[in-house]
């Protein structure tokens, strides 16, 4: 069982990586941080980079191979990529059901 808090930490590590590699933006490490839409500071490439970094961290830290942008994630009525919290919640549920 992987805890929500552990997934949240991985997302925060990915945000650190994104902020370090991109001088133009600063993404807050908070659950309410929007990941896309008008309220988000991330553009589409930043979001892609963030999700890919999370995928790598899942592999490196938890030994889990998981494609985040999968059919289920992309077809949900409420996108799991809306905020840090929705992403963490989605990943926690999906990973624990593998």
């Amino acid at each position: 069982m992987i805890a929500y808090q552990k997934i949240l930490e991985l997302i925060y590590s990915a945000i650190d990586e994104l902020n370090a590699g991109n001088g133009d933006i600063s993404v807050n490490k908070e659950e309410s941080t929007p990941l896309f839409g008008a309220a988000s500071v991330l553009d589409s490439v930043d979001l892609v980079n963030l999700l890919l970094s999370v995928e790598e961290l899942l592999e490196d830290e938890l030994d889990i191979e998981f494609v985040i942008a999968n059919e289920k994630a992309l077809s949900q009525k409420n996108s799991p990529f809306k905020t840090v919290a929705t992403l963490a919640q989605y990943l926690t549920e999906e990973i624990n059901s593998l």
Partner: protein
Amino acid sequence: MNNDKSNSVVLITGASRGIGLYLTQYYLGRGYCVVGCSRSESTVSHANYLHHCLDVSDEKAVKTLFSTIRKAHKRLDILINNAGIASMNHALLTPLTTVEKVFSTNVFASFLFCREAVKLMRKNGYGRIVNFSTVAVPFALEGEAIYAASKSAVESLTKILAKEFAEFGVTVNALGPTPILTDLIKNIPKDKLDKLLEKQSIKRFGKMADVSNAIDFYILPESEFITGQVLYLGGA
């Protein structure tokens, strides 16, 4: 991109025979670190070569391959998407299962490898992807409807991925070889091949060196402004 090729990692699909085997040996000879994959074992034994047996359209196996590359090398510089299968028959004699197999290997697998490759390449903001088309696309050859259609899809992938991957410093190009005497065309009657050669500006079979010469151009660090292109050998 560093100029020391021993640190540059090349991934070649369909590496155990034909053009893929040639390219594997060619780039090992040029000092690259080469990772190859194919359904069958490889005969290549070299300190800088690692072979993976897999079905290129198996997403889980492909994901594991890229995970292994990331853990071992922490980088990927060049992807040569060579794996391909041909179907040469009249449309009325082509089963749907053949169509599915051809598209699965030629299109779906090419996409899968491009997608996973750029995930690794983005880390260094550098990458070169070379896909494989064929002169059967511009020649619109009878008897090659499915093969040519699948390679047309590869050309569209190449042109669009070139745009989508540009911001990661990754170029995506394709090469369209003429017939080369490999297993892929061993069952085609000689008169058909002769007719095909007649359509080329330079009327001879392609050579392996023609292929590596074109790929060498695409993968040069100086070719950073060359992307979304399809280069046909022999003057198609």
